[in-house]
């Protein structure tokens, strides 16, 4: 049965439930495994990274599968997917895989096919010059940045996602193609703190953030929203019921209590937060999800605000680069960014990364106390001398 071409296809709007099929679930994975994967399923013995972006997995059967990992934009057109298919048909018997971090993986079963595949991939460029399938993203390097929808498709963003990721990865391209870091680096990007991208456990997290409290659309709030839900949505209790001069039900907001999370806007369209001057980017660092050596960690806020300087976000790019360069030159082998920061002390992290430490970076939300330093163990940095001076101590 071919895909239909009538305007409404085979669907009959007069009888919407006719012949309806539901609850099929996803298609079964096994049919999409290349033969070499089927044959060696569960029999893999070890793997090696032959060069950045190229892996070989060796099976107990002696079989080897070579994988070429390419950076992909999560946002892609059917034209791009068709080009992926063309490559997969040409070299990989029509099979291809995508990774959790939006990379594209082409697999072949011989070194000869591997060389031809690599050459082909690196030769493909968009007419305006960017690579279509850059090889890299393995080992102690930078892999693809996972991200959210941003201005391309989301109604709550505080910044754009695809453009920021493009800008940052252009700036850090050599790290994607190399393996020169002490350990792997995972950067993630979410365009508001709803964090569809769950960036909160990344080596570096780029997070869109609002800085102005909601503006209230008194005209429609009563009709369009459940006011009690809006009030209940506020984690700090900043929203309370109110009446307009002409007696309409609405809400009022204690602005100094707003922490700009946008949870009220998720519940109600009449309290938008986004604002050109207010919105910007927060940078977090030092998180990870792996259990290797140290348990998983949350990322910590290290830069409270950078402007949304479209389309290239120079301040964001430079700050990320600065952190990575300090990390690359100072961390020990196998140390993730968070491990490094904890070993040298966060005060040294700010010094070595040349980042100002402001009051915004000291937690004052629910579990703040756990982050206070209740010890006399600290290192002296310029920031410490400033405090001593201010207190009249030196």
């Amino acid at each position, binding site marked *: 049965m071919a895909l239909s071409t009538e305007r409404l296809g085979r669907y009959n709007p007069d009888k919407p439930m006719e012949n309806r099929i539901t609850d099929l679930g996803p298609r079964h994975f096994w049919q999409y495994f290349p033969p070499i994967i089927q044959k060696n399923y569960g029999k893999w*013995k070890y793997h090696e990274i032959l060069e950045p972006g190229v892996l070989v997995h060796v099976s107990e059967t002696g079989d080897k599968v070579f994988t070429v990992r390419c950076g992909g934009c999560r946002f892609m057109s059917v034209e791009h997917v068709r080009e992926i298919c063309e490559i997969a048909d040409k070299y990989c018997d029509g*099979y291809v895989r995508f990774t959790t971090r939006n990379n594209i993986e082409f697999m072949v079963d011989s070194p000869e096919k591997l060389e031809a595949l690599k050459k082909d991939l690196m030769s493909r460029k968009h*007419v305006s010059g960017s690579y279509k399938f850059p090889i890299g993203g393995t080992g102690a390097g930078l892999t693809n940045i996972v991200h959210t929808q941003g201005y391309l498709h989301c109604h709550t963003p505080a910044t754009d996602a695809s453009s920021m990721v493009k800008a940052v990865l252009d700036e850090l*391209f050599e790290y994607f193609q190399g393996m020169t870091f002490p350990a792997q680096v995972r950067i993630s990007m979410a365009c508001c703190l709803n964090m569809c991208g769950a960036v909160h456990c990344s080596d570096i997290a780029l997070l869109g953030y609002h800085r102005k409290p909601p503006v209230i659309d008194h005209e429609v709030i009563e009709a369009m929203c459940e006011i009690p839900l809006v009030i209940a949505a506020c984690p700090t209790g900043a929203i309370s019921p109110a009446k307009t001069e002409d007696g309409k039900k609405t809400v009022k907001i204690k602005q100094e209590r707003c922490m700009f999370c946008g949870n009220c806007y998720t519940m109600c369209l009449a309290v938008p937060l986004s604002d050109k001057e207010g919105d910007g980017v927060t940078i977090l660092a030092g998180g990870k999800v792996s259990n*290797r050596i140290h348990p998983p960690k949350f990322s910590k806020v290290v830069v409270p605000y950078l402007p949304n300087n479209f*389309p290239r976000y120079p301040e964001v790019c430079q700050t990320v680069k600065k952190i990575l360069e300090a990390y690359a030159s100072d961390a020990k082998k196998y140390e993730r960014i968070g491990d490094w920061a904890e070993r040298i002390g966060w005060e040294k992290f700010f010094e070595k990364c040349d980042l100002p430490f402001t009051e915004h970076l000291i937690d004052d939300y629910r579990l703040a106390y756990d982050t206070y330093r209740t010890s006399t163990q600290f290192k002296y940095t310029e920031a410490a001398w400033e405090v001593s001076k201010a207190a009249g101590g030196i």
Partner: protein
Amino acid sequence: MAFEPREPQKELKYDELRIYTDEELNNYTEEELKNFKIKHDIPDVEELEKGPWPSFVADAKREALHRQKLPEDRMMIARECVEDLLGQLQLSFDDGETHWKHGGIVGVFGYGGGVIGRYSDVPEKYPSIAHFHTMRVNQPASKFYNTDYLRSICDLWEYRGSGLMNMHGSTGDIIFLGTFTEQLEPIFYELTHVLQQDLGGSGSNLRTPSCCVGRARCEWACFDTQDMCYELTHYYQDELHRPAFPYKFKFKFDGCPNCCVASIARADMSFIGTWRDEIRIDQEAVQAYINGEIAPNGGAHAGKDWGKFDIQKEVIDLCPTKCMRMEDGKLVIDNKECTRCMHCINVMPQALRPGTDTGVSILFGAKAPILEGAQMSMLTIPFMKVEPPYDNVKELIEKVWDWWMEEGKNRERLGELIQRYGVPKFLEVIEVPPMPQMVKEPRSNPYIFWKEEDVPGGWQRDIKDYRAKHKR
């Protein structure tokens, strides 16, 4: 070993399914693409065509041109939708704000998820994206595809939608990005009837489960991540499509403690492969690493000269429990002290392998910061054998869901409910005893919520008895 799918799988052949002819698919030249200008002026967006990283703008323009050159009746939504999307992106850069309206409830009959309504707030300027709804399509486990499948969904989506998609969304689905309301049911009909394919989750549902590459191409998978992901996704289709939960619920399946799908940070219920016997050691390979014959960490550090591999410094001293040593030239591991962090295995994959008596650790409650702050999953079940049909896991899941559906407040994730009621209550619900492994350390305050039945004689006392002994 091969797997039996729950439903027989119809083989999809692109040549039988296709909508577009070869001529239609190859309807523009490189030269035309170079000279192509979209209908809007988008200087900042076009700036993003420069630089080495793949440009999503260059890619989108390709689709815009392709649509320009397709006959009008070969697309069911406006041909300019890609151009309008790029135009609206430029406007968003200019204004520093998004131009998508808040929400909009659309969907397919009988499902409460899988479709996200999206409308432009400047439809007069960009009429072809006035509606731009998202459809989530449930990906096959671990995202392997063949080109017959991919080409078929490309034709379907270009014909009935914008031709723009995400491979993949954050949760794991294939995302179809942008179509009009009228086409939602026809697309769903084609997906189910022709492609034997279903939508994924959204809203207060079970979200589309996802898993790592697992045994398909990794030597460390301690359980069958794909099979378990597939089985539980199919078994809980009702929960995935019809919202009955307080909020979203996520399963993620990581084959080992390296956590490549970040289950510990992102899933309400995280399944992480582990073992309970001994790390397998190949002493000859250990020697080969020591002698520099094999690159450590699978060659991951090859880009920089880190000096000669030093097993003492790089493995033994970095072991978090210090349970390893060299003895008479052999590597010895005290496995009962090992916490299975994977470091030594990651560094010497040819010498060390996880044990063979494998299963999962189950952790509960991870979520992003909204609202109480971010949470990671808490270790709750240290080890569980997992074999199809995973009845032991299903039984546990249902205990958790019953409680959460009964007690959870609107938009309260499981992790927040556990915090609100306390872990002891959660353990009572899932009927397991406490263990020290559930906490980093015991509590440091003595405010124990004793229960009446814990205390001899109960809590009902008479003040007169008290006063008989103690004057006021």
